[in-house]
């Protein structure tokens, strides 16, 4: 009885501490959300207000048809670029990771080493050569340039993560399928892919997030504001309207929306992706 009460007290204290930490660490997000709903005048008010006294949704509405800085167009651009990069990464990574998990072919270890090392490359090394290359391929200033370059972020990550999922499928399961008359390809589609599905989801999510969060590639290879991703849009906007914080924070909130949705519905995949080791930090 006495001990139970003591445990209850301790539990309450731990809950309290963790909520305080949560509020502290997530305060920046709360703060820009509140700011995006304030009027410009209220933002500059001292002392600051911790909820919008005058609700102002103009910052969001004003972005819809606002010439060069059309928030929803850049949002769509980012969606196209990130989805494209995700598709390439998943399509190439699935067979490659299956191969390194199941076969001991010549050059396998060398290939794995290459995938590991490419994850550690700084973008700066690739920017100029890619820039020249895309100009030569006549895809400079198109979505395709950003899609192709963003996919290079997702592929090595996906191969290394998925390899572990495929390796965890028992060989017996596969062999039973062969005995039942499945071809290798059919066995792959019917037996392996369903088991590795959570791994494929992790890869898709991370490849998408890499594409969604990219600034360097999108900004360097796409010059036309109408085709630029939302990150580059924000960066431009900051340069031109540096202190128009109501607009800027609204911009930021819209950029976070897909991330928040992914978090809400696919949290377990994110944690498993992060803990699988080779992730950006």
């Amino acid at each position, binding site marked *: 009885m006495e001990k139970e009460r003591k445990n209850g007290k301790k539990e309450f204290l731990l809950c309290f501490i963790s909520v305080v930490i949560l509020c502290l660490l997530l305060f920046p997000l709360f703060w820009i959300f509140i700011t995006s709903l304030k009027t410009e005048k209220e933002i500059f008010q001292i002392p600051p207000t911790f909820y919008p006294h005058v609700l102002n949704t103009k910052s969001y509405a004003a972005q819809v048809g606002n010439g060069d800085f059309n928030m929803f167009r850049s949002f769509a651009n980012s969606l196209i670029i990130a989805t494209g990069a995700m598709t390439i990464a998943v399509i190439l990574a699935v067979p490659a990771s299956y191969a390194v998990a*199941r076969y001991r072919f010549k050059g396998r270890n060398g*290939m794995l080493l290459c995938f590991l090392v490419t994850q550690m490359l700084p973008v700066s090394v690739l920017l100029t050569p890619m820039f020249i290359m895309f100009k030569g391929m006549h895809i400079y200033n198109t979505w395709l340039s950003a899609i192709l370059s963003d996919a290079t972020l997702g592929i090595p990550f996906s191969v290394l993560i998925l390899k572990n999922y495929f390796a965890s499928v028992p060989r017996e399961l596969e062999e039973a399928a062969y005995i039942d008359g499945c071809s290798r390809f059919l066995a792959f589609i019917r037996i392996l892919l369903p088991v590795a599905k959570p791994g494929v989801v992790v890869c898709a999510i991370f490849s998408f997030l890499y594409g969604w969060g990219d600034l360097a590639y999108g900004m360097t290879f796409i010059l036309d504001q109408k085709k630029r991703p939302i990150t580059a849009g924000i960066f431009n906007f900051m340069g031109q309207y540096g202190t128009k914080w109501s607009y800027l924070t609204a911009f930021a909130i819209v950029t976070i929306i897909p991330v928040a949705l992914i978090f809400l519905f696919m949290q377990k995949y994110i944690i498993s992706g992060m803990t699988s080791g080779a992730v950006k930090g």
Partner: protein
Amino acid sequence: MKQIKSFFRYENIGLLYALPAFLYMLFFVGYPIVSNLILSLQNVTVRNLVRGSRDFIGFDNYIKLMHDTVFLRAMFNTLLFTVSCLVVQFVIGFALALLFQKDFPFARPVRGLLMIPWMIPMTVTALIFKFMFSTDVGIINYFLKSVGLISENIQWLTSPSTAMTAVITANIWIGIPFNTILISTGLTTIPLELYESAAMDGANGLQKFFKITLPLMRTTIESLLVLGFIYTFKVYDMVYVMTGGGPVNSTHLMSTYSYKLSFEMFQYSLGASAANVLLVILLLVSVVYLKITMKGEME
């Protein structure tokens, strides 16, 4: 014929599956690395970028960089940035992981919510912190003033001595979830019986931490720190968006300065050389990382 047949025996079929991904990376990553190396030995500017003759000038670009005070400052900044971020985010991450390891109702949902900062695009994080650190509207100045730590607003991002602090703080915010999650996972691999028997032998919390937790977490900690070093060392967006390397080039990292040289000053070869210096340092550190983790990856 026999040779061709033997090549397509069972094991080598795998090569065919792996080839598309590998060739893609070879074309879009391997080739650029080589061409960046060549670029750094030439004198390419905006005039001879796409066509026109390029002269090989040997290591002149690298020599020029070694005499460039901004680049030397950027090297120092990169190291300062990386080490500061690593130390702080590791300590906070470890503390949080230990907290959430305890069994209480909020542990899992709260730890999950803490992942959000890590997922947000860095450009947005940079914007958020630029806003919070701004001189007049910044909540940080307001807070410091109201608790009496400062009497005048600090010009965080417009004075060289404080801009670096602001940038480091923003990056730590992203690093905390990463460290918390990886350490949490490491902690779950330690068998609980160890703690129980230590408790029976009369060990206190501190003793348990130093005699059981830390030694058993060694590999996790090592790979986490090296990986963290690599990913922090090459950070680009955060600084580029928050300060653009300013004021007066005081916050440039090697990555942002390389970008500036190439795409703002159009000194492509010089920018390529700066990127290669960054690359060499990262590759050296990667060797350490590979040594720690390679065993697991090759199996």
